[in-house]
């Protein structure tokens, strides 16, 4: 099978292109009375060549959304496409290959294999696939991320920021259709965090990549082109060309709106990792700021 990734040429990404798409994406945990909906019939399109941030309070389902879009998790209902490939219904083996060949990953921590040096970590997905890396592209990525003199170092010899840069390089190395970054700055100090966000920005602007970043940091979200706000398993809002202040403002409203349910405001209001059962009231109160596209979060065009 010739994957769309092979046909996809960076820099020529049409803004019309959709890198990933979900329709009616639902993820439920448990069954019967105790069913918890982590994602409640989410429709979302991730535009190609853009930097999309997914924000929401803890337990809003943002990580679950990412896992489902990336083929790491199975869905309870709905469909997910990566490019033209519907990934819902793919077998485990095909999903593994899809992740390997067409998606790049950055996690909050433990991003690198400790026994491999930076260069080996960067090319790992291609090595696993038994493919040769595109040397020119690889050089460009390495230079962009300033890792040239760190290639022989093991992760334990690198700082947290350097480790995330290596993870970023790995995500970029195979020129995937989509890069998922799950709280990539969560474990970094602010300077190193800014650096990593800068690189992700650069990956989109200069290398033509598509990035989806899950974060709860408004400052990080401000680096994106578009912020999707998730609450209680639904996309409740979106914001183009966000600023940190605007995002923060928007997030504050979640706290206020959630306070009556949880009894206390704040990030940890919802029980860890569990989405609040699909309450109709909460999303309704989070009034969309940009013209009522609540659940059909089609991003606007550049």
């Amino acid at each position: 099978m010739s994957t769309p990734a092979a046909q996809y040429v960076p820099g020529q990404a049409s803004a019309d292109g959709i890198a990933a798409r979900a329709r009616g994406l639902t993820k439920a945990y448990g069954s019967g009375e105790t069913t918890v909906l982590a994602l409640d019939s989410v429709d979302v399109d991730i535009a190609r060549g853009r930097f999309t941030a997914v924000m929401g309070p803890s337990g809003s389902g943002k990580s679950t959304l990412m896992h489902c879009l990336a083929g790491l998790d199975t869905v309870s209902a709905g469909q997910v496409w990566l490019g033209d490939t519907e990934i819902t219904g793919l077998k485990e083996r095909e999903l593994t290959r899809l992740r390997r060949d067409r998606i790049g990953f950055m996690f909050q921590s433990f991003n690198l294999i400790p026994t491999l040096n930076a260069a080996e970590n960067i090319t790992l997905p291609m090595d696993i696939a038994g493919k040769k890396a595109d040397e020119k592209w690889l050089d460009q990525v390495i230079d962009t991320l300033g890792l040239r003199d760190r290639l022989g170092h093991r992760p334990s010899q690198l700082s947290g920021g350097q480790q995330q840069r290596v993870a970023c390089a790995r995500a970029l190395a195979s020129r995937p259709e989509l890069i998922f970054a799950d709280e990539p700055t969560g474990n970094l100090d602010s300077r190193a965090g800014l650096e990593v966000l800068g690189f992700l920005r650069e990956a989109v602007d200069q290398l033509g990549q598509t990035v989806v970043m899950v974060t709860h940091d408004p400052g990080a979200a401000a680096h994106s082109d578009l912020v999707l706000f998730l609450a209680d398993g639904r996309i409740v809002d979106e914001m183009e060309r966000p600023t940190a202040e605007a995002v923060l403002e928007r997030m504050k409203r979640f706290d206020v709106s959630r306070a009556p349910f949880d009894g206390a405001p704040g990030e940890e209001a919802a029980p860890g990792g569990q989405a609040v059962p699909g309450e109709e009231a909460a999303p309704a109160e989070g009034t969309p700021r940009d013209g009522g596209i609540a659940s059909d979060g089609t991003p606007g065009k550049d």
Partner: protein
Amino acid sequence: MLKATLRSFLAHKGRLLLSALAVVLSVAFVAGSLIFSDTLSRTFDRLFASTAPDVTVSPKETLKEGVPSGMTATLPAALAERVARVDGVADARADAEVQNITVVDSDNESVGPTTGAPTIGTDWSPDQRSPVELTSGHAPRGPAEALLDSESADRKHVRIGDTLTVIAGPGSFKVRVVGIATFTTTNPGAALLFLDTPTAQQKLLGNPRAATSISVDAAEGVSDAQLKQRVAAAVGANRYEFRTADEQAKSDVDQLGGFLDVIKYVMLGFAGIAVLVGVFLIVNTFSMLIAQRTRELGLLRALGADRRQVRRSVLTEALLLGLVGSTLGLATGIGLAAGLITLMNTFGMNIKSSEMVIGWGTPVAAYVVGVGVTFVAAYLPARRAAGVSPMAALADAEIAGIGRPLRTRAIVGAVVGALGAAALVGCVTASRTASAASLLGLGVVLTLLATVIAGPLLVRPVIRVLGGAFPALFGSVGRMSQRNALRNPRRTGATAAALMVGLALVGGMSVASASMTKSFDQQIDRTLGADYVIQNSNFLPFPEELTDAVRDTPGAGLVVRSRFTPVAVRLPDGDRVETTAAAYDPRLDEVAHITYAQGDTPAALAAGRIAMDRDFARDHGARVGSTVPVEFQGGRTTRLTVGALTDQDSAEGFGTEGGLYFGLATLEKSAPAGQDSALYVNAASGTSDDELRTALERTLDPYPQVQVRDLADYKKLVHDQIAVLLYLVYALLGLAIVIAVLGVVNTLALSVVERTREIGLLRAIGLARRQLRRMIRLESVVIAVFGAVLGLALGLVWGVCIQQVLALQGLTAFAVPWTTIVAVVVGSAVVGVVAALLPALRASRMNVLAAIAHE
């Protein structure tokens, strides 16, 4: 604190299971071997005690037989009448019993046991002490009737009325089976043929007035000791051996004792291996458990538990494991003993499992070994646990063992290794067997210890090489598995050590046996010049009529007889050496090639002459022309003159110190009644070898106890004897592998758990399950092969040293069984694959999301 310990013990029971298995195995072997040998010795004690008469009078045995000579020592049967007249004697009977007869059925097949146990011919004198009773037919009367024991009869389908041929020292004769005798006690495995007393004397001893012993019964109120004293006083204390029932039973048990001891020591050897290898497994498990629980232990410390409490909690856990393991091991040991008893029964020994003896020493040994081993093995990890700082609770869990330097290990390993190497060098350069052997033992123990200590230091260099091709062969999967094996050298070293210990022994012993085989082959090639050798495969002598039959075979040219006899020589330096001498017919040169330092075969075999090994002669101040008094069985001494000195690499084997031999005529003059042990036969001119062989085989058809062998067959016979040693090696290997597999499984399972997040990450970025399994399998293989390579390297060094000790015994050839070595390395890779099955499955089943979300 105890409650916390118990909880932790139960929480980790899965992990501890493998350690417990190691304890169970060790204890099972210890307990099993003790129960088995106790049962065996109790059985035989009881048998011999119940069958021994109050006092036994037997001929004085002045020399111990190293190699069977075929002589049967006798005393006059009339002595029984003299003894009967002694005050206090109720009854005295002359017995005629020989241990080395062959009984064949009408198809010329032996009815005796196939296990090497003897066929005993004896007189039928049923009394309350007899181990058998007549269960069918009637007692034998006259020269042509016999009883057979029921087990032999059943085994070979012999029925009353059948005719058997008895091949005894004086000659063959036919008997009709008139009855079947059944053991009322345990049968030690022998076959029994009963004749009436005059027939036994005449046909088995060849002398109607001879007996092999006198059984004396005491009159009422006379103790065995009193009786012995009175009988000895009456017939002359110095001329015969006198034994009370107890002494006789003990002497019988001692005779069997060699065999019992061998079984016991082999079993204890297995137990030793199991204990040794088990220790590594336990140390490793506890180290890893503690590494995993660093946070928990830190928390305990932060909450106020002091070091001693933490240490005690770990040791309590070990104690529990030891107790549980010992209890299960004891039970398994009982099962093992029962299995061994069943096995012995299939070999013809009749021991009832219900008579199993479990002495108080067995459970004591079981618990001492089980709890002791666990406790000792857990002590170091416990100390390390106590060293966990309260800060560990707060910090990220660090994988213990990575950071700590290996300097202490390097120093201790180097010192112990140097001592061991020195001992081995000493062994190689030693010139006396005894000192070489003890240096060898010391060197083996020290080098093993050094390798175990320094093992982790060798992990990096060796695995770099072993796994060097992995990245090229298996890409990044190979690279990661190689580096994973290098990740925690301590753990890899300890895991591999289990396999190493077993394979080092295998390596050493296989080199030793290969060298022995090669030495014997060379010796046979060099010395054997006969077309055919006729011999019993257990080297038992055969009667003269067989020799006559061979001589009369058409096509047989020269026939040279060879016999063995126990002798004691008084040498010029004053030493009295008890050994076995050989005796040959004069034309020895035509069937054997002997290298002489001085003199030749005629000079060696001439009347009144003796030949000996040059080095032996030099050590004892003997020269050609020296006269040495040679004492034969029964006390007769003849003065022989040294006629020749040989320059053989070896005496004919073991127990024949000095390589003494003389003419067969000389032996017959001093000690008649011996039997031939081997016949060397050359074809007559005009007869081809094949014709001669066919003719000889026809001649020997009625004598199934001997076989015709040419050079190749003869070598094979020797190889088969050495192969027994090899079977033991393979059994050791099997046990070592079982335990080593447990160890590798253990390590990998824990590593998989530790690397949950890493595995999750790999799966997330696209590592297929198959690739993940391969990664773990390769790691396992590299660990196993590392253990094998280390073990075999050590074993080869030992093998070189063992060979040097053997060389002092004349076995100078050195051979390395490369096919075995290669097979072991390949086998260890297979072991790695097998050990990785479960951990790999577990890793590949791991939920990717749970693994990456694992915080």
